[in-house]
């Protein structure tokens, strides 16, 4: 059952290439079928895992036992990421039915979108470090083509910058894999953990740590490596921006960092200090640079950098509460950042502009868009009872718990500045008076409204995932899988016998 996450979108992508050039509706239908199927499968997987005792599923590809063969591994963290990725992908696909009418050649878009989904699902379920690299490249190359999709001048320049920086990051990652292979002579994740524990720390492992932080940090847009994100994310079409900002920087960057540094190499105080420092730097730099922006999508892209800083801060604290806060914030950020980008896409669909100074008073003409935008802005600023409040509260309490009051101070300051920034967005875009040129605006079509409404409802009721009854099958296995640390390999080997 595990390979179906990769097989179904891939088969749909190839079928769309062959069949859908003549029949326009077939591309919509196949793509929504594939993403809906993978979403339902991820929920079923969550349900199955909550009833098993060990909460790990291992699939040997081709029947060969690891470490000679490739295996696919799902534990609590992977199933958590799978549900996050697939729910956002399904909602975005529904959004795309109406939005992509403005661009030509819809079937090409769906093919690339499904290939990006294949790459992301593959990273999360793979148990082998080179397989992870191949799926990372599939997702990256598909995202290069999607950023440059409508071929205007600015999009091409942003895509060029993104491609060159991402290619250098991939070279660093491959170099890190080469060094790790030379030291351990195996590629399987559980086996690498075993060999590293037996051989102990040496200079090669420290070099590998640095190369991986550089390479995956660029994919995750952590602060010294964030320069591609404010250009690449606004230039893409709106569903692609929300997919890139909501999922790609987290599944490619944060997930792999956590998997490698907690479960394989083993965490120590130096790495935790690096993570907390980079996290706080990202929070402040992201929010301060976002304060002066007048372009709506560029503002949202800078806030993405800041919120990923919160996730890295939470995960870099090392305590169980910090990890819980970081993972919950990962899920919440996917939901509300995707919703914010979809709102900006809906505004662009109706008005044709992204500049905040040209908008005003959209609240009376577009009720669904403005109410979901208000919900998402409240969530990202951390206003109770939306879901962003709970995750930020947990991160701040975890900071205070380890007696690092300075980190908590920066986190609260970042949250206050985020609130002010989004109040500006709401005032300029939705409140105020309607400009004369936009007197006869209509609301966006039904499929876009549906996608935004579902994500908005999850924003509002997402806080219940912390309650003990719900979190035991969604968040708590994820936190346990990360906290298990080097026990990962013991678990995999015990399942394989």
């Amino acid at each position, binding site marked *: 059952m595990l390979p179906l996450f990769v097989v179904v979108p891939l*088969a749909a992508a190839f079928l769309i290439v*062959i069949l859908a*050039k003549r029949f326009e509706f077939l591309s919509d239908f196949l793509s929504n079928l594939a993403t809906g199927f993978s979403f339902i499968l991820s929920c079923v997987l969550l349900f199955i895992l909550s009833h098993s005792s060990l909460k790990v599923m291992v*699939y040997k*590809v081709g029947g060969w036992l690891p470490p000679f063969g490739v295996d696919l591994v799902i534990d609590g963290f992977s199933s958590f990421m799978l549900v996050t990725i697939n729910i956002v992908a399904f909602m975005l696909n529904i959004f795309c039915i109406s939005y992509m009418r403005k661009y030509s050649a819809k079937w090409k878009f769906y093919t690339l979108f499904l290939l990006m989904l294949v790459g992301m699902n593959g990273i999360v379920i793979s148990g082998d470090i080179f397989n992870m690299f191949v799926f990372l490249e599939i997702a990256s190359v598909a995202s290069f083509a999607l950023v440059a999709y409508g071929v205007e001048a600015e999009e091409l320049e942003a895509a060029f910058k993104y491609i060159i920086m991402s290619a250098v990051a991939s070279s660093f990652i491959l170099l890190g894999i080469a060094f790790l292979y030379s030291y351990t002579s195996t590629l399987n994740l559980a086996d690498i953990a075993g060999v590293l524990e037996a051989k102990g720390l040496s200079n090669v492992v420290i070099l590998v740590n640095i190369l991986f932080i550089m390479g995956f940090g660029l994919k995750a847009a952590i602060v010294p490596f964030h320069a591609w994100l404010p250009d690449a994310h606004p230039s893409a079409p709106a569903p692609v921006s929300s997919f890139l900002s909501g999922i790609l920087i987290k599944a490619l960057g944060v997930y792999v960092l956590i998997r490698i540094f907690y479960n394989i190499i083993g965490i120590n105080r130096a790495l935790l200090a690096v993570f907390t420092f980079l996290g706080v730097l990202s929070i402040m730099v992201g929010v301060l640079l976002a304060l002066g922006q007048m372009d709506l999508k560029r503002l949202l892209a800078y806030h993405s950098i800041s919120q990923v800083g919160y996730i890295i801060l939470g995960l870099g604290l090392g305590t169980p509460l910090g990890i819980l806060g970081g993972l919950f914030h990962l899920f919440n950020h996917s939901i509300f950042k995707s919703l914010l980008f979809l709102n900006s896409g809906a505004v662009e669909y109706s008005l044709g502009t992204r500049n905040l100074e040209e908008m005003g008073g959209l609240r009376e003409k577009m009720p669904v868009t403005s109410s979901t935008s208000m919900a998402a802005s409240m969530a990202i600023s951390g206003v109770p009872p939306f879901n962003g409040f709970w995750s930020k509260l947990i991160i701040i309490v975890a900071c205070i718990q380890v007696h690092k009051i300075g980190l908590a101070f920066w986190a609260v300051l970042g949250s206050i500045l985020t609130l002010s920034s989004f109040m500006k967005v709401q005032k300029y875009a939705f409140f105020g008076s309607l400009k004369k040129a936009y007197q006869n605006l209509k609301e966006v079509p039904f499929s876009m409204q549906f996608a935004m409404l579902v994500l908005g409802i999850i924003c509002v009721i997402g806080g219940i995932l912390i309650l003990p009854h719900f979190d035991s099958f969604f968040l708590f296995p994820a936190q346990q899988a990360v906290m298990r640390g080097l026990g990962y390999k013991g678990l995999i080997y015990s399942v394989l016998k």
Partner: protein
Amino acid sequence: MKESYSKQSGMTLIVKVITRLTVGLILLYGIYIALHGHLSPGGGFAGGVIIVLSFIHLMLAFGREEAFRRISKRFVSLFEGLGGLLFLIIAILGYKAGYFFYDWIIFKGKPFSLFSAGTIPLSYSAIGLKVAFGLFAIFLALITLKFKVKK
């Protein structure tokens, strides 16, 4: 290249004659390398690149329109998708027998002959097809781009 011979498309007569003789041989060599991936170095990737080199040779020697009359763009796109689907089907067929990518060929010949080694020759030919037509589609997309430079 095309601007200096504006009246006739493609290159001079000598190049055209030699191309007519060698293109078939290059195609055959590429198919040989793609099929014998389990016996000698090469395999799907290298074989696919050599196959597409024969098509590009044809296009360079005879000019764009002449080559388009023989290989149309729809054909290329269709075969590329078909190659990918074929590889996926080979993988899925193993699924029925228990595991994904399982060796589902029951009759395995003796080693070092052509029909041996399970699903590897089939996988390599599917990959060769996909790489060849994928690269040719990239080449077509970059060559047939007509635009006017705006200042």
